[in-house]
């Protein structure tokens, strides 16, 4: 049951917008870059209205330590097909899809490999499919180009945009919310 616009709850797990960024200093997901982002950059991203960071907690635990953290921002997937306008009248195609981007996502080291990550992704999918203020068709993510990380997103039904970023440090993936049946 959702409590307000800044939180979402599912099966006793809560997604809460972070207000106290000092609490993120203790967060450790075992990845130096992710830790650095949450500890040092997340607040600046919020201040600049670029990203909002949410903490995940178990609802019955009094102490609000972050079990996982996820930063989200608005996104759009542009597909510049020169022929798109020809079919505009027939099927109302658009040259871009509105999306939400998972800018950063990490689960606390001591809680990893117990499906918390998948549950959070499920929550994000549900939230943006059923309770979104604006249109949102895709969930996108720029994931570290690491087999374990990519495997996680592929297991969660994300797909690569293309192979062009195969050798880059981060790879872009997407999930089409329209495919989801809940």
């Amino acid at each position, binding site marked *: 049951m959702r409590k307000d616009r800044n939180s979402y709850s599912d099966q006793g797990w809560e997604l809460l917008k972070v207000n106290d960024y000092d609490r993120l200093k203790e967060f450790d997901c075992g990845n130096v870059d992710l830790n650095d982002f949450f500890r040092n950059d997340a607040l600046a991203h919020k201040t600049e209205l670029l990203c909002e960071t949410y903490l995940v907690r*178990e609802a019955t635990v009094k102490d609000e330590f972050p079990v996982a953290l996820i930063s989200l921002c608005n996104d759009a997937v542009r*597909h510049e097909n020169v022929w798109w306008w020809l079919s505009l009248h027939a099927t109302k195609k658009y040259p871009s899809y509105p999306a939400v981007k998972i800018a950063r996502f990490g689960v606390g080291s001591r809680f990893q490999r117990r499906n918390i990550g998948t549950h959070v992704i499920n929550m994000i999918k549900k939230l943006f499919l059923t309770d979104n203020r604006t249109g949102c068709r895709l969930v996108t993510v720029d994931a570290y180009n690491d087999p374990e990380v990519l495997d996680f997103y592929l297991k969660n039904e994300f797909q690569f945009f293309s192979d062009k970023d195969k050798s880059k440090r981060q790879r872009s993936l997407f999930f089409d919310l329209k495919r989801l049946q809940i």
Partner: protein
Amino acid sequence: MALPIQPTPILRGKAGRRFEKKIKKDLNRPTTLVDTPRLEEARKLVRKHGEKRQE
């Protein structure tokens, strides 16, 4: 400083057409939420950790 948030690629030409086709085709391949059989184990662990922090 952490890596910047990468821009989502703009899919031009062939890549754009391929993406559009994929999106359309995959609508015939509906999906459900992914199972989380170990979530109860996670809950116990988090609660235990919470108790420890309270001590």
